[in-house]
């Protein structure tokens, strides 16, 4: 842990780790509620992802700025207050921008407060690093989260409504798979993605092992 503290360099990995290696959804399984609840269309997924990213970055910034002032006894309480502040802000901003998106996401915007990713980032990264670095890291995490949401949203919307970002893809006669926009679809699509990644991983390991045999 102390190593992380001393290493102030910002590398590409600071940004990238959130996208792939420590992807909050596919690898760490954090913040599952919004992942499944609002991904029945790509546009909702995108909005949710961006809102979360916004809260991630701003709260990381604030936590990082105050990291030396906050006594450790009350740090969690402080983080929660900070996060709740930005969530409220983002809630109002979305309402001001588009009533439709606000209606679609409903209470799930406010539930960003209890998204473990944000508190986790605050605790693990922002409270130990300088503002810029923690913001870069938070941006990576946020992007990773958004991408994951999109992965689900795109599949669920294409199959479940026959459209993408609201644009019909297959014409009138397409039979949508309603189950995909229903709750079971959320579970099954995420499960499917995880299976797919796991399969990729085992295949990679197998091919590596096979190479090891032929070359070694």
């Amino acid at each position, binding site marked *: 842990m102390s190593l992380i503290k001393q290493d102030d360099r910002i590398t590409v990995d600071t940004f990238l780790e959130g996208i792939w290696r420590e992807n909050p959804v596919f690898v760490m399984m954090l913040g599952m509620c919004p992942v499944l609840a609002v991904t029945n269309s790509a546009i909702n997924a995108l909005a949710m992802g961006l809102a979360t990213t916004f809260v991630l970055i701003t709260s990381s910034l604030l936590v990082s700025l*105050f990291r030396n*002032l*906050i*006594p450790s*006894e*009350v740090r969690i*309480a*402080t983080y929660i*207050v*900070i996060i*709740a*502040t*930005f969530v*409220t*802000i983002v809630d*109002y*901003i979305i*309402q*001001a*921008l*588009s*009533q*439709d998106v606000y*209606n679609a996401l409903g209470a799930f915007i406010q539930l960003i407060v209890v998204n473990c990713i944000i508190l986790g980032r605050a605790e693990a990264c922002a409270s130990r690093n300088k503002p810029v670095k923690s913001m870069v890291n938070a941006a990576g995490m946020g992007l990773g989260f958004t991408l994951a949401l999109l992965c689900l949203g795109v599949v669920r919307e294409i199959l*479940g409504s026959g459209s993408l970002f609201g644009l019909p893809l297959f014409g009138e006669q397409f039979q*949508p798979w*309603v189950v995909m*926009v*229903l709750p079971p679809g959320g579970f099954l699509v995420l499960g499917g993605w995880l299976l797919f990644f796991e399969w990729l991983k085992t295949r990679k390991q197998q091919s590596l092992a096979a190479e090891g045999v032929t070359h070694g």
Partner: protein
Amino acid sequence: MSSKTSTAMIATLGFVTALSGFLIVTVYQATKPAIEENKRLSIQKTVLEVIKGATADKHFIINDKGELLEAVPGMKGINIYAGYDARGKLMGVAVEGSAQGYSGSVDTIYAYTPACECITGIKVIKQTETPGLGDKVITDKNFVANFDKLEAKVNAAGDALANAIVAVKHGAKHNPWEIDAISGATISSKAIAKGLNGSAQQVLPKVVPLLPTIESKFTSEGAKP
């Protein structure tokens, strides 16, 4: 725990809370007009859509005493949205209706046209029915056609509808006040009917006598386009 750290804790918490309070209030104030405008626009859109031929709308509230008031935020009572054409003729009023469907309430806005004493349009504004089946109440053309001209006459006593609005099974509509249900989505259809009936029974007898007043408000006050 030393008093120094407690002081620091209180100070930090206080500072953070103050800061967040400041931020929230700032944003709240900054976005408030936009949000209210958004809400108004979306209602207006619905009202103009549901009242055919209307180009301008106006929001009234009927309070507990049965008085018609112009809506001000925070006011309690029954919402009435009036729709006028360009020349200020009252084309109809839009009223909210709500009833319980399969998986939660189905909220609607419907238009009442004084000219024919009937309901001439309906829009579901919130529902959580099963996609593909229950939500046919929005998508099914035959079902929506029910509301082209659905009788909603107030009775002679002026305290209820002459004929209650009911949903009947698909293909069994005989009277102008009946709604032809969607086969396979009977409950959702019934929810719509129940919502309409409940609201119309309560609201229309109050609104009908006030119609001239509502019409007159356009000329005196002017409604936003």
